[in-house]
């Protein structure tokens, strides 16, 4: 059963209405089906014969083409090779991948306010993700405040403000060029004073190679923690699914700097598989918590490792859920 929002948010008691679930599932299917088609063709073309070396090579090739990386692809193929029999390659691979990611993810919202810091390199979709997440949280009955911590990029604040309005969230901005740590501080202050449940803080995109900007991010986190011990409760690294092997380096450096608690994998509505999250899980033990599958407010889903694994080899995500 595909992981749903209630489980991710820790609202297990409130089931999603069947209607909206179907609608969401159709969107997910639609979103991932574009990726599925490309890879499904490739995998379907592999007449899976465990004794044929070439088949294993083709599988490895398909995984590398999914940005899994040479090492992880080899590792996965090895693990599959150790199995005694494989009836359904898609299912087997999905199992391996799911095993890699560990237990289903959770967002730690059991605080008032729960603070979420959003970080990542330029162009990955941080601001859009915050809009979607805020919308989902307000829909679940929580009150949300977003803080415009990107004080560098032209019109970044205006962009976030539009999303905040769409999501029905409160908004704290800045004076252009203001210290991002100060904005983070203001956002938490306001969150506490106004009695919000969740405070989400946006930050400017930055390459992990820019040491001064990474220092700035460390400072933002430190200021947050000082103002509210225990915060930020979630630090989400937003990663573009089209990213290649550099994604691993991004995850490493950002993790070292600000203790990333989870990854948001965006732009999965394209043809890229986002396979880089596999070595990220392998080497850093970092879970993926959310996936982005489009540019509208609803296009955010909890990460389901089995679905992801199946999609990697072209299977149908969430096959056991009712079809629409």
């Amino acid at each position, binding site marked *: 059963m595909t992981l749903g929002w209630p489980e991710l948010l820790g609202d297990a008691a409130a089931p999603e209405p069947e209607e909206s679930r179907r609608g969401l599932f159709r969107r997910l299917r639609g979103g991932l089906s*574009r990726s599925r088609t*490309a890879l499904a063709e490739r995998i379907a073309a592999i007449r899976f014969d465990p004794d044929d070396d070439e088949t294993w090579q083709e599988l490895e*090739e398909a995984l*590398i*083409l*999914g*940005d899994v*990386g*040479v090492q992880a692809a080899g590792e996965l193929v090895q693990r599959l090779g150790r199995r005694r029999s494989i009836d359904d390659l898609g299912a087997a691979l999905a199992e391996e991948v799911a095993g890699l990611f560990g237990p289903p993810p959770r967002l730690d919202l059991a605080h008032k306010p729960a603070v979420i810091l959003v970080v990542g*390199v*330029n*162009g*990955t*979709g941080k601001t859009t993700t915050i809009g979607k997440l805020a919308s989902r949280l307000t829909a679940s009955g929580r009150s949300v405040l977003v803080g415009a911590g990107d004080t*560098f*990029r*032209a*019109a*970044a604040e*205006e*962009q976030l*403000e*539009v*999303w905040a309005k769409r999501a029905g969230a409160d908004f704290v901005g800045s004076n252009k060029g203001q210290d991002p740590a100060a904005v983070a501080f203001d956002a938490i202050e306001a969150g506490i004073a106004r009695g919000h449940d969740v405070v989400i803080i946006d930050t400017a995109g930055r*390459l*992990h*190679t*820019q040491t001064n900007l990474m220092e700035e991010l460390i400072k933002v986190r430190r200021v947050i923690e000082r103002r509210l011990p225990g915060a930020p409760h979630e630090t989400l690294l937003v990663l*573009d699914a*089209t*990213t*290649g*092997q*550099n*994604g691993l*380096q991004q995850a490493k450096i950002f993790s070292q700097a600000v203790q990333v608690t989870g990854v948001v994998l965006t*732009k999965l*509505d*394209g*043809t*890229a598989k986002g396979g*880089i999250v596999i070595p990220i899980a392998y080497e850093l033990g970092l879970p993926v918590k959310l996936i982005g599958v489009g*540019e509208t407010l609803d296009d955010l889903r909890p990460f389901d490792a089995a679905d992801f694994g199946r999609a990697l080899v072209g299977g149908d995500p969430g096959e056991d859920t009712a079809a629409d």
Partner: protein
Amino acid sequence: MFDALADKLQGVLGGLRKSGRLDEETIGKAMREIRLALLEADVNFKVVKEFVESVRERALGQDVLTSLTPGQQVVKIVHEELAALMGQGDSRLAFGRPPTVILMVGLQGSGKTTASAKLALRLRKEGKNPALVPADLARPAAIEQLEQLGKQIQIPVYRSELRDPVAVARAGLERARAEGIDVLIVDTAGRLHVDEALMAELVAIRDATKPMNILLVLDAMTGQEAVTVAEAFQQQVAFDGIILTKLDGDARGGAALSVKAVTGKPIKFASVGEKLDQLEVFHPERMSSRILGMGDVLSLIEKAEEAIEADEAVEMEKRMRSGEFTFDDFLRSYRMLRRMGPLKGVLGMIPGLGKQMEGLDVDEKQMARVEAIILSMTPKERRTPHLINGSRRLRIARGSGVSVQEVNKLLTARKEMQKMMKHLGKGKMPALSPQALGRAGRR
């Protein structure tokens, strides 16, 4: 990351003997490591396959430069092939009757808006009169973003209240015409290559503005799908070149190679930072080194090549001091000097010669004629110039398209230089007069 790979290569190939020809086994071993390096650099799987094959063919049977290991020799070939591949095509923009339109296309988040502003700034510095059109109506505050950037660099931004990107682009073009703009840069919304509706919209924008340049903006950290994306954009919209962005990161940038290999379109610019002046012309050699990620090995190769030249120079000096100065030496010294830059400049650097060099007029064309004469000699004639009798002189003159008198003058000059070298060798320092040096290069 890079060092580990260079070490691995050393380890795998270091044991093999130092000189000789490249055989299949050596090449096979080296190409395995190189294939790995390219895949780790995000070069597309299929592109790697083809590239490795073509290099393998070229490498087979090649001579190994002394002081390079066979493995390093392979790396040298790979680097050259990569640079050649990356460098093909015209990196300039096309300009026509104003206003020339440049259309910026690509996936979401690739850096189109920033690149548009950077390009406008660059063009203005080159003396053009550019303007920008914010045709991204999808992303919240995208128009404001381009407007703010335009203000920063004082370049007009043609905002429109129209709700359709095609109409906005068209309106921008009309305004550009009316206001005497040279170049109009149209920023568009990021879009997926598999979004039929949005790709159709892009085609409509293209048809409405008839751009002379369509640039695909590509993030340097893009992985394997770069090929699929580029092919789709090429098929549906047909772009002319690529702008590679976020190169200030540490992504190896293999996507650049993939896209170039598959579409044949050149990379025109590299974006190397968030500031608006951080747009550079693309350097194929630098990119190849970066993709290969074998910085250490490449500098080793460079040093090896320098060393070879140094060795040859030492050999020549030995001969000169013993009284030999053949035409091979002549040619070698010419070529070395040429490589170092204009002769005058180089000679002027020698302390004590500076002033005297002012009287010296170095004629590069003349030097080329001298080179042609020497190349018309047989190797034996070059080694033993006293063999060159009348009939040989005639043949040489005909073969190089000069008069016999010129050949005679060159032979005399060489004799004089040999005399001079002999004196040097014996410890006597005759006046290194500009005339003596000049005679070697003058008619």
